[in-house]
């Protein structure tokens, strides 16, 4: 079936390193993608989005890359901080948001 999934369930990095979280999607007709951050006990928080007419979008310390050829998304976090520790989800928007299972990012100082 159609789904959005993440490559790795966990990622551990040192404070100050750059983090890369990957996501593959299967619906080639998808045209809008969002990355969410979810801290323990909280709802998902919007980080950054990208539309299919773009291949890169930058925010504050975060960059999303979209490769439509291989149906792949990535979230890059620069200078990762302990406060970045959370579960990260990519989601595909088709009126409803279709979420993957998430990657748990652990940042050690």
């Amino acid at each position, binding site marked *: 079936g159609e789904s959005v999934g993440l490559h790795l369930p966990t990622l551990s990095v040192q404070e100050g390193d750059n983090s890369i979280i990957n996501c593959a999607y299967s619906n080639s007709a998808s045209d809008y993608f*969002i990355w969410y951050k979810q801290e323990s006990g909280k*709802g998902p928080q919007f980080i950054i989005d990208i539309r299919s007419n773009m291949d890169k979008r930058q925010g504050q310390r975060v960059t999303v890359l979209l490769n439509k050829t291989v149906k792949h998304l990535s979230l890059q976090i620069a200078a990762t901080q302990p406060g970045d520790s959370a579960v990260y989800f990519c989601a595909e*928007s088709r009126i409803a*948001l279709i979420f993957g299972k998430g990657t748990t990012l652990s940042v050690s100082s």
Partner: protein
Amino acid sequence: DAGVTQSPTHLIKTRGQQVTLRCSPKSGHDTVSWYQQALGQGPQFIFQYYEEEERQRGNFPDRFSGHQFPNYSSELNVNALLLGDSALYLCASSHNAGQDTEAFFGQGTRLTVV
């Protein structure tokens, strides 16, 4: 702006009972979507309400129903609760239901069925 607010934050129910969860959307938003998030999983879409009507529905049984009020707030009702209904229930609001509008989530309601 209070953002998306959900109530209650936690709830314990017994199998077979019924539950109602509530959501107030972010100011200016007219669309509310509900998601179920089991432990360790991503949120799963239940349904979306726009202009007081169910606009789209995910793969959930009829035991799950909802309502949207004229002020855009929404309720999620679950009947005949099962142990497997234990989850975090999330409400998300957006402006004008569509495929590329940013959705804001509430903190969720943690439902435990015993």
